[in-house]
Each structure stands twice: as C-alpha cells, then as structure tokens.
C-alpha cells in the first residue's frame, strides 16, 4: 500500500517536473521594474514607461562586470488601450518578463490625473497580483511621467529608488509632502468623497541632458528630479496644487506631521527662532449643533529649539513660555489657512466628513448628500499647543551679549 502511494507520488512528481514549472522564473529571465510612469497620449491611449534595472551595472562586487559603462537603468515606453496590455506588449522591446514586485514608485502624469483615469489605474494595480500595495504613488507635476522616470541620478544608482527615498525622507523631516502608497489611494477612493492628496514630483532642468549617464560626473547636476507640492484631488480628479506652508497646514490637520521645522520672528525684530517639531498629534473633534456641524482641530507638538538668533534670555522659563505661544500661533495660522483654502475649494481633503460620520452617524446621514456645501460653510476652531523641551547644547544665544 505504502509503496503504491509513494510510487504514484514519485511518478506524478516526475511527470510534473518534466512538463514544466509554470511560475518558475530564473533570475536572468526577470526584468525588475523599479518605477512605472503612466501618461495619456493624444488619442487617449495609455503611454506607460517602465524603469528597468540593469543588475550588473548596479551591484558592486567582483561579478558586477564593468560598472560605470552602461546606465544603471533603462526606461522603456509602450502604449496601449489598457495598462495590462502594455505590460505584455512591451515584450517586443524587453527580452525578459517584467516583475513589478519590487516596484517602488508609480508616477501619474498630471494631465491623466485631471480626468477620470485614476480609477482604472488603481483597479489594475489592486487587482493584478504582481504589484506591491506599498508602492508609492506620485504625480508628475507640470510634465509627463515618462520624462521624470528617464532622469538619471548620481547618488542613488536607481532613479526610482531615489524618488522613493527622497519622498520618504522629506515626509519624515519636513512634512509638506504626503507619502501615499497604492493602498492609501485605493482607500481614499473607496470613501464617500473620494478626496485625497498626493505628492508631486517635478523635473528641474533639461530632460535630454538628464538622461545621459555621463552627466553624473558633474558636482552640480544640471537637471534633476525633486519632490514638489501637494496635489489635491476631489472625486478622484486632480483639482489643484498646494505648496509650502499651505501644504503643511493640510498635513497638520491630517495628523501626518512626523517631524518638521517651525520658524518664528522674535519680538518686532527680524531675527528668527527655529524649533524642530519632534512629536506632534492632531485631534479632530466634531460636534453637531441643530444640524450644523462644527469641527475643533487640536494640534499638539513638542521639540527642541535648534536655532536662536534673538537677544532673549533662554534660561528664563517665562521667555520659553512666550516662545511657545508664538509657535502655537504660527501653527494655528498655518492650519487655519489650509482649512480656509480647502473650504473655498469645497474639497474635503481634510477628512472632516469621515470624522463626523464616525462620531455622529445619525446626523451624518442627513448631511452627506449636500456635504460639499456644508463643509465649505462649517465652523472650524483651531487650537494649538507647543512645548519647547530643550534648547540644545547652549543656553543663551550668542547674540544676547550684543544687546
């Protein structure tokens, strides 16, 4: 009996082994797509660019061959009616199977984002098993996604990874640009209002120059890619861009500030004080009064003082309290401005609707159909608390004696 079973097993096994391994891919048969850019052509076709690694040019070690001769990545472009179509059609240019499992960025052209294509794209990235849901999504600001992906870059050998890491770094250290991955975008698109914010990425300098590998020998690159701005989406369509403090205001409300730098003027002088926000937390509290919703935004933050050019006695707790208050009002100002912009645009990117629907589900039912109007008219109170926890390696500023 056992021999029969094991015999069958062996027989079956060998047959299976002989007929082929379906999902088997040798390493050299796989083309690793690191970044994917999607644009639309004039005749409404998708124009998809794939940034593919040339492993031998990237990896160090003995086996890597002659590093430095070829480019570390190659960007291929293919057009097609659907996205999936392009991933297979590209086989006429790429001699390998595309693998999206290590893709780090998905870049959408600005024009594309302004029409309804976001749904189609997101459905594909969600449905197709090969994608990683943690792939970051960015918008190509004022340009085409494919030109962004074709820029080479000296510090990180793989440009797509450069974009990913830059975005992660700036989100963490500066806070103006949101870090959104495929799953976040899909989640936002599944909510009632389909509002979301995405970071932009733009090309500085000349595209043709940036594509050449030898430009990497310059100390000051002539063309490069930078993360810039925050795109606001409403109903799945790109509505507009926010920059600098306004974008950061939105991030405060969304509780997405991890670290950032606050700068204020001291007294009436022009001198500045800067503090790093090391920890921050934003609480949204909704209340509904006779059918009219109100929102209270409470921002808490703390961190060390890092730069002080004011003649102030920093050893005095009272002075510190004064500075705290200034920081608080700076935060308040930023947040209020961002809220105002959102209300003017009637675009609830701040997630107020979600908050109300959670805390006041009954009232929400009557509000949700006319939410945009309600949102633009609702009262918003902003509160801020900030604490300086330490003043760095020195107590009083150098400038104190000058007075």
């Amino acid at each position, binding site marked *: *009996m*056992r021999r*029969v*079973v094991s015999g*069958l*097993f062996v027989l*079956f096994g060998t047959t*299976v082994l002989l007929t082929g391994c*379906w*999902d088997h891919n040798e390493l050299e048969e796989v083309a690793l797509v690191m970044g994917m850019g999607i644009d639309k052509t004039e005749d409404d076709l998708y124009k998809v660019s794939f940034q593919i690694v040339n492993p031998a040019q990237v990896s160090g070690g003995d086996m890597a061959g002659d590093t430095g001769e070829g480019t570390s990545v190659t960007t291929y472009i293919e057009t097609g009616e659907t996205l999936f179509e392009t991933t297979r059609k590209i086989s006429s240019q790429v001699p390998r199977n595309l693998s999206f*499992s290590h893709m780090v960025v998905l870049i959408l052209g600005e024009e594309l984002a302004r029409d309804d294509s976001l749904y189609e794209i997101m459905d594909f990235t*969600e449905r197709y*098993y090969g994608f*990683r*849901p*943690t792939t970051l999504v960015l918008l190509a600001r004022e340009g085409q996604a494919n030109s962004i992906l074709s820029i080479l870059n000296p510090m990180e050998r793989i440009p797509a990874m450069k974009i990913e890491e830059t975005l992660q770094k700036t989100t963490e250290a500066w806070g103006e640009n949101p870090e959104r991955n495929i*799953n976040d975008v*899909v*989640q936002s698109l*599944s*909510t009632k209002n389909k509002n979301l914010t995405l970071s932009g990425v733009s090309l500085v300098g000349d595209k043709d120059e940036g594509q050449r590998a030898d430009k990497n020998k310059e100390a000051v690159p002539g063309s490069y890619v930078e993360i810039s701005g925050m795109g606001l989406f409403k109903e799945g369509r790109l509505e507009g861009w926010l920059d600098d403090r306004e974008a950061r205001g939105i991030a405060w409300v969304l509780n997405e500030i991890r670290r950032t730098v606050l700068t204020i003027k001291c007294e009436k002088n022009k001198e500045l004080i800067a503090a790093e926000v090391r920890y921050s937390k934003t609480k949204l509290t909704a209340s509904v009064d006779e059918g009219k919703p109100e929102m209270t935004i409470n921002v808490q933050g703390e961190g060390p003082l890092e730069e002080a050019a004011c003649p102030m006695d920093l050893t005095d707790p009272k002075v510190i309290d004064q500075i705290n208050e200034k920081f608080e009002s700076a935060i308040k100002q930023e947040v209020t401005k961002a809220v105002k912009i959102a209300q003017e645009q009637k675009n609830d990117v701040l997630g107020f609707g979600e908050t109300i*629907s*959670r*805390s006041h*589900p009954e009232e929400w039912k009557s509000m949700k159909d006319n939410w945009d109007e309600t949102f633009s008219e609702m009262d918003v109170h902003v509160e801020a608390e900030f604490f300086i926890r330490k003043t760095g390696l020195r107590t009083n500023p150098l400038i104190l004696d000058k007075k």
Partner: protein
Amino acid sequence: MEKAKINGWQFFILIFLFELGTAIVVNPGLDAKKDAWLAVLLGVIIGLVFYLVYYALYRFYPNLTLIGYTKEILGKYVGFTAGVVYLLYFLYIAVRDLRDFGELLTASTYTYTPLFVINAIMVLTVAFVIRYGIEVLARTGELFFSMLMLVGVIGTTMVFISGRMDLNKLLPVLENGWGPVLSTVPLTYTFPFGEMVVFTMLLPYLNRPQIGIRVGWTGMGLSGMLLIWVVIMDITILGVEIAARSTFPMLAAIGLVDIAGVFQRLDVAVVMTLMIGGFFKIAIFFYAALISAAELFTVPTYKKLIIPFSIIILIASMTVASSSVDHIKEGIEIVTYYIALPVQLGIPLLLLIIALVQKRINPR
C-alpha cells in the same frame, strides 16, 4: 474506525486548526461590513451552543461515531440513508476546501500553475498523512500548531509595529442596525463553526469522554477569538471597503506590512502558513469521509479507500465550480442554506430529540 486514542490537548489542536482552516483567509462575515466581527462573534456563540447537541449525542453513545448512532436511533434503513448523506457532505466539503485552497494559491502566487496540479499535490500530501491514521494526524497537528502560533505572534507584532492599524475604521458600530449583521450570521455560523459536526466522527477517539465539552469549547472559543481578531485586523488595516472587495482580505492586509524595507511581501509566507489550516481542514473532512464510508459499507480498513477517495476529491474539486466566482457564490447561497444548515443543525437536533424520547420510553 481504527484503534486509536487521542488526548484532550491533541483534540483541542485539531479543532483549533480545523476552525481556522480556510476561514482565516476567506473571512466570512465581511458582508456585514464594519460589524463583521459582531457577525463572527454571534457565529461563535451559536456554534458553542449547538456543539452541546453533538456532545450530548456523543455522551449517549460514547463508543459510536455519528454514522453508528444514526443507525442506532433511526433504524437500519433510514440510518443508512442519513449516513450516506453525511458521507456525501464530508466529501463535498473536503472538495470545497480543497478548491478554496487551490484558488488561494493560484490567485496569489501561482498564477500560471494549473489549479489541477496544485490540488493534486495537496491531495497527495493529505492522503500520505492520513494513511498513518488519526494519531499521527493529531501529533502532526501539535507540531504545526506551535509553528502557526509562532508565525501568528510574529505576524501580529509586525502588524502592530508597522502601525497601519486604525481602530477608528471600525466606527460607528452598527451603522445600519442589526439587519445586515443578523443576515450574515447563518454564514458565519455554518462556516466554520457549524462544520464542527465532523467532529462527531472523531469524538469517540477521545481518551476521556468527559473532557469533550471543555476541549471542544476552548478550541472553538479560541479559534473564534482569533477569527474575530483577524477580521478586525483586516478592516482596520485595509478599510472595510477594500476588505469587503478582496477575495482574500488577510492576504491583502499582510501584504501591506513593510518594516524597514526588509520585512516586506510577507504574504507568500503567510499563504504557506495558511496551508497548515487548509491542510488540516481537508484532512479532517477527508478522514471523516473515509471512516464513515468504511463504517457504512463495512470495509475492514479505511486505508483501502484512500486512493479512490483521493481521486474522487481531486476530480470533484476541479468540476465543482467553473470559476472562482461560481465557487464563492455557491458557497454563500447554496451551501449555507440548503446543505450546511440541515446537515449541521437539522439532523443532529432531530437525532437528539428522538434519542431523548427513546430513552424516556425505553430506559435501559
């Protein structure tokens, strides 16, 4: 029935692995949207209550399997027919679970591999292990249980560290009232808690009959808690909309875990871990079908039936549904109401009532 005894701990593990089985990936109850966890909770409670029916029957006939005492209670012919119904039920659910498992693998990582090959290998593995008997199956379970626990603990920690859970996504509770929750409960009860009916075939192997209730309840209760936890995890990570749209929500949730760029794409590892549950579920149904067939048709040893049954299950798993859509639809609409409820609840309740009446009329 073979001559074997399994202890309480092993029985508990079999129940635990069985309940998690395929339910942990498929997650029944997401039809109730945000309140899926409530639906699962109600499912567990109902399951625990009706486990009493199986347990009572077992205590009346401690040495008989379900097949044995249906004959005893209903008489030779009706009992035989009922036995055949159960045999078919066990076989059918084994087939369905195999298909579930195959669908999971072919949807997630083995997209180009034919379903048949995946299923065939699984059936071969199950057949190989079942040949050793229930004791070895239970002991294998003990080892894989600790493995599953280890992976579970590591996975949960990672989910926590990755900070993607947002409990707010569960609010508001009962947004649309009890309606959607209650209409989902038949599903969450029959799958997987009502499937405990298969353990009426295994209870006689228990070495101490009186712990049957304790072991059964802890097994069901703990696995139910874990299922609730997984549903909560799915919803809080993915948001209820994505979770409800996903074919395999847990897979999608785990796929989001990314710690320092090193621990990422854990979903493949998770799929493999889920193989453990799927394996035991198929194995237990398969085994129950084997011993019931052996008992019904008085075959001296069930081992003779392994090969024909393997072939039947394999072929049926390919033909039971034409597509994954068909398969899931069938599971929710037909199996729950027309197969599971009568077989898991109707017949055992009837048996218990008749047995009680018989005892009253004719006390021995």
